[in-house]
């Protein structure tokens, strides 16, 4: 695959198809559908139908008398005054504004270091930092949960050494930071590799020119590398925002350890899950899922828009 010197990301501009406009007009006929139809059929079943079904569910309510009745937007107005929903939403927002910048800055720093050609054994570092991404979330969380634990974890070892219970990653005070650490550990390498891959596509003559002009390493980062990374940064930010809003695996797997610290409505996604399974409130659960999906999509869209506007400047 050839890469050109224009680095901006295709997905950052949804209006522009990621394909070159074919100069030669191809015949327009239905043959292409033979290839696209199987995908679209399954897509309709697992993307479009659940979405439509969730919207339908969110407009109804199962009542003791009268069964399933149409209630319009009542579920939505109930959600707007639901303290459980708001506390979960503000928690993932707090998580988002702290964890995502830390993770992306660490990933960026690692990508610059590995790309700088000043590192011994750079490919070893690249691989080892990426490795946690291969670990299933369940294993990562179980593992960190044990490490955090005060029975046989490293926290216990540290506390033994210090002679008092100072290190308490699973306490009310620290649990969100501890979850942030797990998420950072899982995804910092993925983001690093995304940035690094983009850096390797910067044409070499740019660096030669910079060298001739006497630009130092930091100047090169600021004037060449960071602008080239803009598209990847937008993507990484969008994926991280989606991940934060949809936070589920980490708190849900830690929950059995500390039921009183991580409540069943700890994040909106956990709330939707518990409403559907423990509470059998399918209609209300669908409402939570739709509202979270809309919030996520809107914020992802705004980031995308801002990212591409910065590009035009």
């Amino acid at each position, binding site marked *: *695959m050839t*890469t050109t010197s224009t*680095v901006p990301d*295709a*997905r950052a501009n949804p209006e522009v198809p*990621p*394909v070159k406009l*074919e100069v030669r*007009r*191809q015949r*327009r006929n239905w043959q*292409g*559908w*033979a*290839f696209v139809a199987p995908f679209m059929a*399954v*897509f309709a*079943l697992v*993307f479009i139908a*659940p979405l439509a*079904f969730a919207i339908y*569910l969110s407009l109804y309510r199962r009542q003791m008398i009268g069964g399933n009745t149409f209630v319009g937007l009542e579920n939505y107005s109930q959600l707007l005054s639901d303290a459980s929903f708001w506390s979960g939403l503000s928690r993932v927002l707090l998580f988002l504004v702290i964890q995502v910048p830390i993770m992306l800055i660490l990933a960026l720093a690692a990508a610059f270091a590995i790309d*700088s*050609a*000043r*590192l*011994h*054994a750079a490919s070893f570092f690249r*691989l*080892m930092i*990426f*490795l*946690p991404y*291969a*670990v*299933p*979330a*369940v*294993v990562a969380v179980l*593992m960190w949960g044990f*490490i955090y634990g005060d*029975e046989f*974890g*490293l926290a216990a070892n540290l506390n033994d050494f210090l002679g008092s219970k100072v290190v308490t990653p699973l306490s009310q005070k620290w649990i969100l930071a501890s979850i942030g650490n797990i998420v950072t*550990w899982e995804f910092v390498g993925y983001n690093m*590799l995304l940035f690094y*891959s983009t850096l390797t*596509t910067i044409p*070499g003559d740019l*660096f030669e020119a910079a060298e001739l002009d006497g630009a130092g390493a930091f100047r090169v980062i600021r004037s060449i590398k960071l602008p080239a990374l803009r*598209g990847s940064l937008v*993507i990484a930010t969008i994926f991280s925002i989606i991940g934060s809003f*949809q936070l589920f695996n980490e708190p849900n797997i830690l929950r*059995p350890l500390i039921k009183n610290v991580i409540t069943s409505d700890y994040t909106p996604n956990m709330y939707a899950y518990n409403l*559907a399974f423990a509470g059998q409130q399918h209609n209300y659960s669908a409402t939570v*899922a739709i509202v979270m999906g809309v919030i*996520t*999509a809107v914020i*992802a*869209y705004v980031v995308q828009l801002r990212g591409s506007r910065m590009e035009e400047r």
Partner: protein
Amino acid sequence: MSSRKRENSVRGARNPRKSIALTVLMAFFVLYTLVPLFWLFVNASKTQPDLFSSFGLWFGDDFALFSNIHQTLTYNDGIYLRWLGNTLLYVVIGAGGATLLATMAGYGMAKFRFPGRRGVFSVVLGAVAVPGTALAVPTFLMFSRLGLTNTPWAVIIPSLISPFGLYLIWVFAVEAVPTELLEAARMDGASEFRTFFTISIRLLAPGIVTVLLLTTVATWNNYFLPLIMLSDPNWYPLTVGLNQWNSQSLGAAAQPIYNLVLTGSLLAIIPIVIAFLVLQRYWQSGLTAGSVKQ
């Protein structure tokens, strides 16, 4: 891939002195990523009593890794092996099917002009932004009405769609499969499917491997979807099963099997880590393809 070639020429052109300070700094970073995995390995090799009595980052009195592995594989009539088999089933059919569908559709989008193509384009692009977890609960509610929950299909069918995979193949096919070649095949009277399966699929091979890796990892590591879809432990994949073992260790009438959870976790990551290390070249190129405009 030319990115690798370019990388070498760039790095060859400027060859700054290696920095010890930077290397040491990065070594701390690697410690952060590796220490938890080392901890897992060390503790998977301990007996249950040693777990509680010995220091976490070094081996206990007995090196019990092999007896732990034996126990893990035989506990509860070998349910772990059943979970491993389920995971493989979901990966082969789910990730394999997802790769096939994404390859065909990506190729169709890249090489054909057909009515509704723009519609497909915007729908798929929108889907990349819709988080899978947001759809999981509605999908469960729908599948339960259809009577699909608690069957392997409930896990496999949603795994069949990879919008990002379609996007990668699409971008890849534009360059990798020359339109002239397709026209020549058409002149010779070959059907479109024949051309696809005999010629195009070979040219697309590097892209296909990348997508296969992405979907394999996603299916192997999937937790939320099987968690909500399945209630019969006999259909669990490894991820859900391991978490169940862990919860079982914590309950009121707990029968702690921490050593099995630890060893089972270690065993679950080995195949996927090996796949990563062996095929890392494809990861790199896939990420570049996804993040760089053609």
